[in-house]
């Protein structure tokens, strides 16, 4: 398996008894990429042989400054001994003083388990700064999301609308699908400030001002409702649009869904006791009462006099003022275009319906002879997510998709196992500081899905327990953590200081941090007074990387990782598997060449440390080591003793005959190796659609232990979860309430209905001074920062330009190719301009992470990456005036693409 998820075949030469990579190609038998590959994957040999590889454990030389990159090699035993002693001491005192944050890896199941076992809440992967808005906005609305979790069914779609995507995670399958879709005559529309990559081949490009998609989507939803282009049957039955919302501002239950007190909730965690106003009988009935049909509009009174309105009515009221003309002023897209787009979507969904002869039964027992599809598919990524208003934007998109009746249906959006999940999913963090105890595993997961204020991870005053302030009132639904806050918070000692920060596979001293210059200073900053005077503010930094990145230079201890060609790995169902629409799939990576130098897989490091620290999951009751190595761990580890659930779902059971659940199988790795390293469970066709409400699927998923509950997952057009937080902020919630300073913020942003607000940074920006939006995009032929050590790829992108619309550039007196300055209120960088007609005039952009810091990546001192390349991160702030993070107030998603700049010749 290649660096991320595609299957590859590696041709190896045996030379002088050593094996060396000769050639890498896509694996035609692999279900994901079916033989195709990308530019990076096909250049794997040059990563493997890169001079920037780390090959020995390194310790910062005594007296050398952090960042200077002066190290001395040490033995692994010394590295382990140092680390184990340090970590054991922390664990005994206060486990939260150890933080483990990981980057672009795919092994959160293991790293998360290690952190939890250690007992620290301070664990997360990169999701918080990456695309948590995409995950949270959709999962809190439809119980699933894009990328690994679900996607557009381009096999059957007729219209495909893509928002803000340049490349994405499953880029090869997406490319395969888009090309096929286009060949089949489908119509492809791309909404993006920039026309590159995928957008280049769109039938229509809709340029939009960054950060304004929420307004566009609200106007589309409005048109859809005003014109009656929504799928009423779908909305009524499969969303909460027909459920009644209490409309009594004086009531502590205002804005919550009205319930039938006497009804059987079925599952108290996700109670099914909501009410409809049955339009046939003209009275309130339990929702999904057979024979009833909810009114979507109206204003009613329950028997006890409570005023109620269908959620759909509230949505319609909310969007009514959001006319296309209103959106035009915000987005820059002509109103006529917005109307036409809405009509195209609605008419295509309505008139080009698909009926598949697949019988299925819904959760309320109704049998359906066919599966219906409304062939309008969407996809979106960081163009929506990476804004501080992204949660609501993404939620609006999910609502639009639902109104069109396209959720888990042919030609629309489809889930990938283990999705759909309950709204919200049941995983939870501890709820207070008592969940963190010395020498004890964490009393919950480090990351979870809050459903109400009671689920927050806060202390008695409402203050954060996590170093990144995740799950606090500042970012209540920060379901992926806030990795971008860790260094700044630890440096400030807000909420407290750390002892040891371990970073795995993330370049936090360069491209995955906002405000890069400051962060590099913080990493190297010392305490000025008191007992610890002279000590680093972040006392000990451990970095595990495979290459000499900017980050490794700041480490006290560097652990040289293997490359993806040298180690075992799993894409586990417990993490982000490679499932497709028609069933769960997971896969493994097996080493094809031996480790270079003294490299060791980070997985082995965790198993070793877990064993030395005697963490319960890694040690036998007598304290002895439980697992020989990582492959052994993968085979024998079970989520709970005897659960039959492990990291890998395939070939379980003593003889390998079981799948998904079953006793450990010592031969499991061999079975995978014999089967292209992939396990696939193909679902019965009747379980492949409408899964949110599909009784057969739910029962199967429960048996397979993919899900604990089998309740239907209604689309949350109206989010009761958000309303609970709002009530708390308004002082009406019976339980936890935010600290007064945050009450206004929570009340504003926890709106149960989607709304548009300008990104937070705009509120602090003089737009006359900084009129332009600055964004980045991923180049298809580079993976963030770490392909500059690849001799082939860096010939394609060896430095970068700032792309500027010629009119915008000329107005500032900047010539094509000229040196220029791009400046925000937070900082400035020098770069070269490149005129482009493919960018909206109010936007400037560049390729992400091409520029490098001198000294890194084993490049010569005059390499173009240093002399002409640049990154935009130094002009992006991690903190807004007032001290809150530059993040979405709901999810904590980093607002990368909110920065406003001005440009001038330089």
């Amino acid at each position, binding site marked *: 398996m290649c660096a991320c998820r595609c299957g590859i075949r590696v041709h190896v030469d045996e030379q002088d008894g050593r094996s060396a990579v000769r050639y890498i190609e896509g694996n035609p038998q692999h279900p994901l990429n079916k033989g195709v590959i990308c530019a990076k994957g096909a250049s794997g040999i040059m990563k493997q042989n890169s001079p920037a590889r780390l090959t020995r454990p390194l310790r910062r030389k005594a007296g050398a400054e952090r960042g200077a990159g002066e190290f001395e090699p040490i033995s692994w035993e010394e590295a382990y001994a140092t680390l184990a002693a340090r970590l054991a001491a922390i664990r005994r005192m206060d486990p939260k003083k150890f933080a483990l944050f990981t980057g672009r890896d795919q092994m959160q199941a293991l790293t998360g388990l290690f952190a939890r076992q250690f007992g620290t809440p301070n664990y997360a992967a990169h999701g918080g700064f990456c695309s948590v808005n995409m995950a949270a906005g959709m999962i809190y609305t439809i119980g699933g999301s894009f990328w690994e979790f679900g996607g557009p069914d381009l096999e059957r779609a007729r219209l495909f609308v893509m928002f803000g995507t340049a490349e994405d995670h499953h880029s090869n399958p997406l490319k395969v699908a888009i090309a096929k879709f286009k060949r089949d005559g489908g119509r492809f529309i791309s909404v993006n400030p920039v026309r590159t990559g995928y957008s280049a081949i769109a039938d229509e490009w809709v340029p939009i001002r960054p950060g304004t998609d929420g307004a566009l989507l609200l106007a589309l939803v409005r048109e859809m409702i005003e014109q009656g282009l929504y799928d009423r049957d779908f909305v009524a039955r499969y969303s909460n649009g027909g459920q009644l919302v209490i409309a009594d501002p004086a009531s502590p239950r205002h804005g919550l869904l009205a319930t039938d007190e006497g009804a059987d909730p079925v599952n108290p965690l996700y109670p099914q006791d909501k009410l409809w106003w049955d339009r046939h009988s003209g009275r309130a009935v339990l929702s999904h009462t057979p024979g009833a049909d909810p009114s979507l509009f109206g204003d009613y009174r329950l028997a006890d006099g409570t005023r109620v309105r269908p959620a759909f009515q509230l949505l319609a009221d909310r969007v009514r003022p959001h006319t296309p003309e209103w959106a035009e002023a915000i987005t820059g897209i002509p109103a006529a275009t917005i109307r036409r787009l809405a009509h195209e979507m609605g008419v295509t969904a309505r008139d080009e319906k698909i009926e598949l002869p697949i019988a299925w039964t819904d959760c309320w027992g109704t049998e359906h002879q066919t599966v219906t599809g409304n062939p309008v598919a969407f996809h979106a990524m960081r163009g929506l997510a990476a804004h501080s208003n992204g949660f609501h934007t993404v939620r609006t998109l999910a609502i639009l998709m639902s109104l069109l009746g396209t959720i888990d249906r042919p030609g629309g959006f489809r889930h990938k196992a283990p999705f759909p999940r309950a709204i919200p999913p049941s995983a939870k963090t501890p709820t207070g500081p008592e969940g963190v105890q010395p020498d004890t595993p964490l009393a919950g997961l480090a990351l979870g899905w809050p459903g109400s204020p009671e689920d927050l991870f806060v202390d008695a005053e409402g203050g954060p327990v996590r170093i990144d302030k995740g799950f606090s009132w500042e970012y209540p639904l920060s379901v992926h953590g806030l990795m971008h806050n860790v260094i700044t918070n630890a440096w400030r000692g807000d909420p407290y200081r750390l002892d040891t920060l371990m970073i795995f596979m993330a370049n936090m001293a360069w491209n995955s941090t906002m405000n890069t210059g400051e962060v590099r200073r913080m990493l190297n900053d010392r305490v000025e007074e008191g007992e610890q005077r002279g000590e680093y503010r972040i006392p000990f930094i451990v970095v595990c990387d495979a290459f000499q990145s900017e980050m490794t230079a700041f480490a006290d201890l560097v652990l040289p990782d293997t490359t993806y060609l040298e180690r075992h790995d799993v894409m586990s169902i417990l993490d982000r598997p490679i499932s497709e629409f028609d069933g769960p799939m997971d896969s493994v990576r097996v080493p094809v060449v031996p480790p270079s130098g003294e490299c060791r897989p980070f997985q082995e490091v965790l198993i070793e440390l877990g064993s030395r620290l005697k963490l319960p999951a890694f040690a036998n009751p007598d304290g002895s080591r439980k697992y020989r190595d990582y492959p052994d761990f993968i085979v024998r580890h079970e989520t709970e003793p005897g659960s039959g659930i492990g990291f890998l779902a395939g070939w379980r059971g003593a003889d390998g005959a079981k799948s998904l659940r079953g006793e450990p199988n010592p031969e499991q790795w061999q079975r995978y190796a014999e089967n292209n390293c992939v396990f696939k469970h193909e679902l019965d066709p009747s379980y492949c659609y409408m899964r949110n409400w599909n009784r057969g699927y739910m029962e199967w998923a429960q048996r397979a232990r993919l899900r604990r509950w089998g309740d239907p997952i209604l689309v949350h057009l109206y989010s009761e979860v958000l309303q609970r937080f709002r009530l708390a902020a308004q002082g009406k919630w019976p339980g936890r309430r935010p600290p007064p300073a945050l009450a206004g913020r929570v009340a504003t942003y926890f709106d149960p209905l989607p709304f548009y607000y300008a990104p937070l940074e705009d509120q602090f920006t003089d737009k006359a001074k900084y009129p332009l939006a600055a964004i980045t995009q991923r180049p298809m032929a580079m993976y963030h920062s770490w392909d500059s050590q690849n001799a082939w790829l860096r010939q394609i992108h*060896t430095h970068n*330009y700032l792309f500027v619309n010629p009119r915008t550039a000329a107005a500032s007196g900047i010539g094509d190719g000229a040196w220029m300055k791009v400046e925000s209120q937070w900082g400035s960088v020098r770069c070269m301009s490149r*005129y*482009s007609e493919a960018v909206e005039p109010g936007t400037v952009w560049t390729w992400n992470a091409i520029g490098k810091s001198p000294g890194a990546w084993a490049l010569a001192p005059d390499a173009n990456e240093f002399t002409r390349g640049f990154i935009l991160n130094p002009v992006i702030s991690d903190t807004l005036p007032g001290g809150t993070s530059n993040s979405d107030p709901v999810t904590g998603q980093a607002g990368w693409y909110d920065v406003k700049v001005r440009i001038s010749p330089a």
Partner: protein
Amino acid sequence: MNPAWSVVLFTTLAGAGQGLYLALFAAQAGGRLLQAGMAIALALLGAGLLASFFHLGHPERAWRAAAMWRTSWLSREVIVLPAFMALVLAYGLMPGMALGALGAVACVALFVCTGMIYACLPFLQEWRTPLTIVNFTLLGCASGLTAAAALAAWLEPALARPFAQAALVVGALAYLGRIASLARNARLRPKSTLATAIGVKHPRIRQIAQGAMGGSFNTREFFHGRPREVVRAARWTLLALVFPAPAALVLAGPGSAPLLAAAFLLQYAGLLAERWYFFAEAKHPQNLYYQSIA
């Protein structure tokens, strides 16, 4: 194109050698003048040949280049050049009408081959004209005549004046020919455009990226990469030195060896500029694909 010094030197040195041969043969010179002249012609041709080897990636395989004389003007040149050199040597040792005439034929053939190497490429429109052969020939002859005049002024003064006069006449013709080709080329409209290069019909097409940022063979070989001023300077140099300046010296001292020698050197310098400009001026259509990086 990016002028390669090896080729600039080769064509100018060999051209002068060829012109010298033709001059001495036409004048039926003999004795010391002939011997010295043939020696110098050989030396010029040899130096040119040597220079041309620097153009090759594998000079040790140069012998293979004779293989494709049926189709390749370069191959033909590779055959004619040594043949001509042999004839020059033979004529210098055993002057005779028949041998000399054979040499003259080979000499003209060599001019044609060299010129055709450039003139046969259809899409290098600047070169795709009979003027290329005419100019190579006339410029070679003019420089050869000037060299012959200088040599004669030293070894056989009686012939100096006629050589000088001929040098003026041929030089003037060559100058006119070169000016004609400059004028022609200035009016050329490139047949290939970005629209035909990528096959998209639109008047506004711009390249953004060429797929390689650190340069490639294509950016090094087909474009000189010099600022416009350098190219303009080369043109003025060639216009001044190819004829007017040496002609003035010739007129000033039609029998003076030092002045004639200076005239030759000036003219040769002019030819270097001329040949550099000849290459630099040619716009290879492949450059349409190599205009911008990003």
